[in-house]
């Protein structure tokens, strides 16, 4: 049981992170690591940072 719960938590979280990163990139979002608040360039479509 512990294995199932821990697996769901770990792989679920990693999957969600990977999905959000890919989704953001596919939707034309920038893969910028600077963050909008510290960026002098305003993206036309606000990326999900």
């Amino acid at each position: 049981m512990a294995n199932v719960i821990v697996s769901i938590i770990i792989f679920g979280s990693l999957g969600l992170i990977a999905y959000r990163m890919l989704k953001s990139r596919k939707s034309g979002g920038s893969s910028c690591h600077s963050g909008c608040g510290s960026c002098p360039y305003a993206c036309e479509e606000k990326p999900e940072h």
Partner: protein
Amino acid sequence: MAHTIALAGNPNSGKTSLFNELTGSSQYVGNWPGVTVEKKEGHLKQSKHHIVIDLPGIYSLSPYTLEEVVSRDYLIDARPDIIINVVDATNLERNLYLTTQLVETGIPVLIALNMIDIVEKRGDIIDINGLAAALGCPVIATSAVTGKGLKDLVKQAIHMVDNHMAPPISAHFSQETEKALKDIGSLIEGTVPPETLRWYIIKLFERDQQVQQRLDLDQKKIAEIEAIISATEEKLDDSAESIITTDRYDYLTAIAKKTHTQKRAAGSLTISDKIDRVVTNRFLALPLFFVIMWGVYYVSIQSVGELFIGGIEWLFHDFIGANLASWLLSVGTNSWLVGLLTDGIIAGVGAVLTFVPQMMILFFFLSFMEDCGYMARVAFIMDRIFRKFGLSGKSFIPMLIGTGCSVPAIMASRTIENQRDRRMTIMLTPFIPCGAKLPVFALLVGAFFPHSAWIASSMYLVGILAVIISGIFLKKTKAFAGDPAPFVMELPPYHMPRFKGVAIHMWERGKEFIKKAGTIIAVASAGIWILQSTSWSFEFVETQQSILASIGRFIAPLFKPLGFGRWEVAVATITGLLAKETIVATFGIVLGLGTVAEGDPTLVASIGSFFTPVSAYAFMIFTLFAAPCVAAIGATKREMNSIRWTASAVLFQTSVAYLAALLVYQIGSLIF
């Protein structure tokens, strides 16, 4: 229906500060001109129905630069309900030059006479009511920094939008010019909306090619307009553009004379001028800059920054890692799942987060230098040096931004009009150490050079040196040959930054670093741990028999001449392509260190077998110059719009990295 309020003004007049105050956002504010490259949008804090647009700083509505094109196209095509013209009150006459052009667009203008606090401090007096009467539009004295006048400004702006205020009166030119403008007007009347007629007439008189194309005039009309312009030029013995400029300044000088009283005698030096005599001195400027950068890196990485490392190491390794592992095992969790979580994800993320305090301190100093006005001087100093080697000082602005992250730095190169210079800047900007490379330097400096004060700071200086040497080399090639673009930059006056502003800058940069550790680094750490724990037949094996080890052994011989031929290091150079911090995460996982920090005997013992001090420095050099992370490569591709040029950039950067690391290791090994 939402109403739009556009913020327009000269570079560094405080538009973005005002934008942040009006909308409650925290857009990047830099104390150098040209920080805003594209327009930004936000809702007025007081009303969701009013959208505020922050336009890039411009000196005129002539289409000379990208910023001017962006601002002008927006004003003419989108036609906001009103323009808040942010005027730097310390530079009244020059700032009002743009005002005279904004009023010609036929859009109601509200003037925010910004930086009024500095004017008052200097003892100067501006007759606000007199200025408003002369310009025919409301003027509100403001200070975006102290918040003075902002409530009145918002109130007035909403009032103007809701009551559809009439546009202000346009500047009146000399009799001859006005006659010519009237004649041109009669030729194009009816082809443009009446409220924009004056603007189009003046632009046609200035022979603005874009406006000519936009109006799509027939050849007969073009010839008639040209005849009017030529006749006026002959009469006034000047070019059309110059006639308009002179007339505008005559008009403004008369207004300024009536409304502006300066306490300081003309020609006397301000405090900023006096500081600049030292800071931008031909002989002192560069040594002073190097000393400052040395101090910044030394304090950030090797002294104050290190004080916090022990606590973070304890948090991740001894507290979270150890307790979580023992608890998970006690509840019957499989050991490989525990390994993935603690030795993979927590070890990798923890190794990177260990260096957050050092990054925060570095970002604090860089933000302080930027906000007080020193970084603008650095661009000016660098222009003097860069120019000698065929590079423009304009290239240094993206490089300043690159100290945070290469992605926006590469994007900021858009402002460079000359394509050759722009391409070269994109290729060379990643040579400036970004925040992500800092953990790699901090790790190796902590392990191999704990008592050397210059190693960490040398990365910044070596980066600039590489930019100059590469610039000299590239300028000799056909693809980049040519004179550097002229670089005109107004130096903002020095001021003591507000702690809040510097802290926000520091936090904005640091926050993204932490976020990155929780996303891409976490996923990469899990991947690296799986690859270093399994074989090609997907069985759990010892690290030495793992997939990661076999990949590492395959590529390691390439790095042997550079002094780091171990497979673990070779693998780290590859994982570093995901994000540079992954190099540290990789060491943390592969060495099984959990977290790493100076003075940790495990780190010194383990890393010590991978590097010698010379090869560690060669590795730092390689990391500094090698192809940036995938995000930066993606930005390069977007900005260059060419796979061939992107591949050339990556190849060039990696070649420089290899060659430089080779020289450092081979020569260093002979000496030390």
